[in-house]
């Protein structure tokens, strides 16, 4: 207590005005997004001065409001000094040209497993509905089944019911949520992602098998091809990211599972942000092109293939000017 610090009163009197001014400066620093060199140096000086005063207060006046207040101001200055730098154009370009392609390359193995799972699920869905047609009720609504039995696809006349813009927004938000969920569900040691991918594959296979029984599979393919190439690829990439997230918990690459999980999540989320942008494009195609009978199959295939090429160029960084030699270096 202060009994062992006879100068406590004079010390407090001498320092209190400085602490008050530092408190006021801290509030201003919090408001500013960018500091000048002088301001940064001044903040560092204040931080060091506060550290000295806090050490004194902790030793001689523990548990007092002075010590609590100094702890708070000190933590505030520490927060300012430890603040992440602003996202600059150069940092954004580095993310697009180097980090995302490197993350994509690191996902090669989980992506292969997810693709295998997806294909097997499609095959399983196809086999299931081909063998037991009555089971279609498990994956399709009654309304959808009725329409197919009448010889119509559930996507027919979609534009008469909902305008393209509204349809696009609804579809893209749904796709983004599915992709985010496929990624985040990886937190359950990858099992959540496994379920999401298997379910999506099963539904797709079942839908094709069911429409084939009524001769509508070609029209379903016609509807899917323009947007499906990228949409399904992005769902598989999100699934691979989810698997990687699960793997970071099962086989942590860093000293603790928590650190490994954090590192993995923060690395993968940049890739997912780019995937979300690609899904916006898918939503627009699905809203404006896919349900529109004016687009012939050839133009749909061209749109699908070109958009997939654009996705590939974006994910490998080439769309943003990444040099061929930079990508393998990032992979390593």
């Amino acid at each position: 207590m202060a009994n062992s610090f006879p100068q406590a009163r004079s010390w407090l009197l001498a320092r209190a005005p400085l602490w008050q001014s530092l408190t006021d400066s801290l509030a201003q620093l919090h408001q500013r997004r960018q500091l000048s060199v002088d301001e940064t140096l001044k903040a560092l000086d204040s931080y060091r001065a506060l550290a000295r005063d806090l050490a004194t207060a902790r030793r001689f006046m523990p548990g007092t409001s002075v010590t609590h207040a100094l702890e708070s101001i000190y933590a505030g200055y520490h927060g300012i000094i430890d603040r992440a730098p602003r996202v600059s154009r150069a940092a954004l370009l580095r993310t697009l040209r180097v980090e995302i392609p490197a993350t994509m390359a690191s996902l090669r193995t989980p992506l292969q497993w997810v693709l295998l799972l997806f294909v097997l699920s499609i095959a399983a869905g196809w086999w299931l509905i081909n063998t037991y047609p009555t089971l279609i009720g498990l994956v399709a609504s009654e309304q959808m089944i009725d329409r197919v039995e009448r010889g119509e696809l559930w996507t027919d006349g979609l534009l008469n019911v909902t305008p393209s813009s509204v349809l696009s927004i609804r579809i893209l938000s749904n796709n983004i949520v599915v992709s985010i969920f496929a990624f985040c569900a990886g937190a359950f040691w990858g099992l959540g992602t496994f379920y999401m991918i298997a379910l999506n594959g099963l539904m797709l296979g079942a839908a094709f098998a069911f429409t084939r029984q009524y001769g509508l599979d070609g029209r379903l393919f016609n509807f899917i091809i323009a947007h499906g190439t990228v949409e399904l690829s992005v769902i598989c990439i999100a699934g691979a990211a989810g698997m990687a997230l699960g793997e970071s918990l099962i086989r942590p690459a860093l000293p603790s599972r928590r650190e490994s999980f954090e590192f993995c999540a923060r690395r993968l989320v940049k890739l997912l942000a780019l995937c979300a942008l690609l899904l916006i494009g898918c939503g627009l195609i699905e809203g404006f092109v896919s349900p529109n009978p004016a687009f012939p199959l050839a133009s749909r295939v061209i749109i699908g293939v070109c958009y997939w090429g654009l996705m590939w160029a974006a994910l490998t960084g080439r769309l943003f000017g990444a040099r061929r030699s930079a990508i393998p270096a990032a992979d390593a």
Partner: protein
Amino acid sequence: MDQDRYTIPSATGVDVELAIAGAGSRSYAFLIDWHIRILLTIAWFVCAAVITGGVHLFTAPPGRSSIGFMLGAVMPAAIIYFLYHPVLEVLMHGRTPGKRTAGVHIVTRGGGTPSAGALLVRNLFRLIDSAPAFYMLGLFTCLFTAQRVRIGDMAAGTLLVFDHGASVGSLAQLGALSSTSKLDPATLDVIAELLSRWSDLTAQPRAALARALLQRVDAGQDVAQLAALSSQELRERLQRLLRGREN
């Protein structure tokens, strides 16, 4: 490590200590935020519905295009509801109105202000934390993890810690008191705290504390005389001590 404190090593050699907010403070902040965002969402939706031709909730007003209604009423309302947390946390440097009211804010594990990316990751994982209903998984992990974090915090490398706004305010008060009183700052601090909590404490303990403090300040005081003082008289003597008129 103390479970309710988080210590961060600093370049100065003096560690930064943060008080970790538990499930109670989190829930309190979330409930306030939830009420704000639901009210904002409903307010926008109803206003837009009225403007677009009468109250037609969930359907477009008859005779009008549903595009305008979707884009003008439903979409902004959904954006307010779903982007409330990420947008405000980024703009308010790890705070929201609810967190501010609950006296908590988000920091990184290094004690810094979290980046927009970290806040985005934290909010993405709300999908998982809110499962299966009412944030049960998030609450569960919050209760059973060392630093009281939900899955989103683990992924983003963030923590929810308490503010110390009140103690910062008391620094100015203590500085002013020290200039008028001859008492040492630690005693002044205890007296000021006792007086600030005077009405919250029951009569007997506060009188006992006041007498112990008065005796500590002046060891020669007559114990019987102090015991005879009423609660109001004890309070007045403590206030005089603070103002430096009696030592």
